């Protein structure tokens, strides 16, 4: 015998599938974007650390260094300047990051072709893209001179010969096209001091640092990470349109059922059920259908993410995507946001048919018109 007073048939299945697909596609798409964002973050931190302080001086900032060491925070002072780099007749503008040789290996997590353990005077590490473009190889000798065109006492620009110690690979922000690591005081600035310092570690319990402005890796690469955040938001809201459309469908489903059940609603009203309570039945029904569909969609997406992270179902070409398998990271904030927006939207759409219920008159029942 029929037991489901609110049976909606095919239109319910369509609503369910729509909401299911909407929820699953949002979680999956955002998980992929989170995954790539995580890779961006990791790769960026490998060459920029977690934070930077752009006003640093070894002599006057000894207290700062003491704080870092006391709190187990890794730091690497550096000085950065643009140089021309040349070999034979090829030239390129590069950003030379002059670092403390004692800090270099432990601080920067570079993927080196020769896995060099140190960086010494007269040596340089360049990026793979730069090496490919300039046809440089490990062991090559190159010339480097400042874009400031500082002159020697013979009115000649300072030109330094350096040997390529190793080649690193890091395509984030095209860094291996223009970033070059060298040891400080290697070239024509014997009195040049470090001006900046990069930090790895949790500095929450030591900030505020005296007279220092701390910039996070995200702020240093604001444009890129703002762009990825916007991309995530646009993806989320574009895919949320599926849920909006499915909610329209749900609305018509509830409307259809309410129209079919006019007589039953009039009976309940005659025996004293308030119209608000009758509306509540349909609202709860709409929500149950929708929340079940959305939770099922989320669970399905979580299952796919688990399988991908465990077995690597979707593989990628690492030369293009930096990773060999599609990265997927679940953000519980995204799930909470999806549930919140869904509940609001479904509430709105499920409420529309309730206008019809308000018009139900049990008088029709007593007048035998139903």
């Amino acid at each position, binding site marked *: *015998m029929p037991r489901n*007073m609110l049976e909606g048939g095919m239109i319910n299945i369509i609503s369910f599938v729509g909401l299911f697909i909407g929820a699953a596609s949002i979680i999956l798409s955002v998980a992929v974007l989170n995954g790539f964002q995580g890779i961006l973050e990791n790769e960026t931190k490998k060459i920029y650390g977690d934070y930077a302080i752009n006003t640093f001086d070894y002599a006057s900032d000894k207290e700062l260094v003491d704080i870092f060491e006391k709190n187990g925070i890794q730091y690497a002072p550096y000085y950065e300047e643009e140089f021309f780099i040349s070999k034979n007749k090829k030239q390129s503008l590069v950003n030379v990051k002059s670092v403390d040789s004692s800090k270099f290996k432990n601080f920067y997590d570079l993927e080196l072709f020769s896995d060099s353990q140190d960086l010494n005077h007269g040596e340089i590490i360049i990026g793979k893209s730069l090496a490919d473009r300039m046809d440089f190889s490990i062991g090559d000798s190159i010339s480097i001179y400042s874009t400031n065109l500082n002159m020697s006492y013979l009115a000649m620009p300072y030109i330094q010969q350096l040997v390529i110690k190793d080649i690193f690979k890091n395509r984030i922000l095209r860094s291996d096209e223009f970033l070059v690591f060298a040891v400080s005081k290697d070239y024509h600035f014997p009195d040049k001091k470090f001006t900046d310092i990069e930090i790895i570690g949790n500095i929450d319990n030591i900030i505020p640092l005296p007279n220092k402005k701390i910039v996070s890796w995200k702020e240093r690469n604001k444009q890129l990470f703002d762009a990825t955040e916007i991309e995530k938001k646009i993806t989320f809201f574009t895919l949320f349109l599926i849920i909006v459309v499915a909610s329209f469908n749900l609305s018509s489903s509830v409307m259809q059922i309410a129209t079919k059940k006019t007589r039953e609603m009039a*009976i*309940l*009203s*005659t025996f*004293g*059920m308030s119209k608000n309570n009758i509306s509540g039945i349909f609202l709860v029904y709409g929500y149950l259908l929708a929340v079940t569909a959305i939770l099922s969609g989320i669970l399905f997406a979580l299952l796919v993410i688990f399988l991908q992270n465990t077995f690597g179902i979707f593989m990628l070409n690492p030369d293009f995507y930096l990773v060999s398998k599609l990265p997927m990271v679940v953000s519980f904030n995204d799930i909470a946001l999806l549930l919140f927006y869904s509940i609001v939207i479904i509430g709105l759409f499920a409420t529309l048919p309730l206008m019809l219920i308000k018009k139900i008159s049990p008088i029709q029942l*007593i007048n035998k018109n139903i």
Partner: protein
Amino acid sequence: MILSARNIKKTFKDGDKTLQVLKGVNFDLDKGNILTIKGASGSGKSTLLSLLGTLDQPDSGEIVINNNNLKTINNYDSIRNKHIGFVFQFHNLIAELNIVENVTIPTLIAGKNSDSDYLNKLFEYFDLSDRKKSFPLDLSGGEKQRVSVMRAIINKPSIVIADEPTGNLDEKNAIKMIDLFQKLKNDFNLTFVIATHDEKVFSIGDKKMNLYDGTLIEL
């Protein structure tokens, strides 16, 4: 006195036309009595029952049900649930619910749990004990109407309003229904207001009235 109506008037508008259906209805009814009302089709019997059942409101006049003056009441749903039972010409049972569920609808709406002893006794009284788990589609016309009467009295209402309760029954079942009303009046001290075209039903009234030209005349 369980029910009284004073100078009840009701007018309907249909475009520019105005039709005064009730022009001043007056009556009193004591507990445990049956009031039967007859009248020509369109005379306003159903309208009067709608007003007595709080499903509609009069333009003027006063209705008092068990000391509750409807003019001073805001929540008619609660009054209907506690004080009024309805029996319609058609049984109006919910097809998707079984018989027990149909019968206990008013109890559930009141937010109470059904008293199983009372419910069992009621099913025995109505000779429907073996039909508890059945669905309306499995019942005969007479059984369905008996279930609808059970539903009307489950909350022990002050009055039971019945609009053409035998209108959809064959003669045999109509007689059974008439007997049932009289039995319920005697055994449960229930009060009935019955609108009917059927002379046999009309004759069971302790008070018999004719609705004519918008007013009730006692016969």
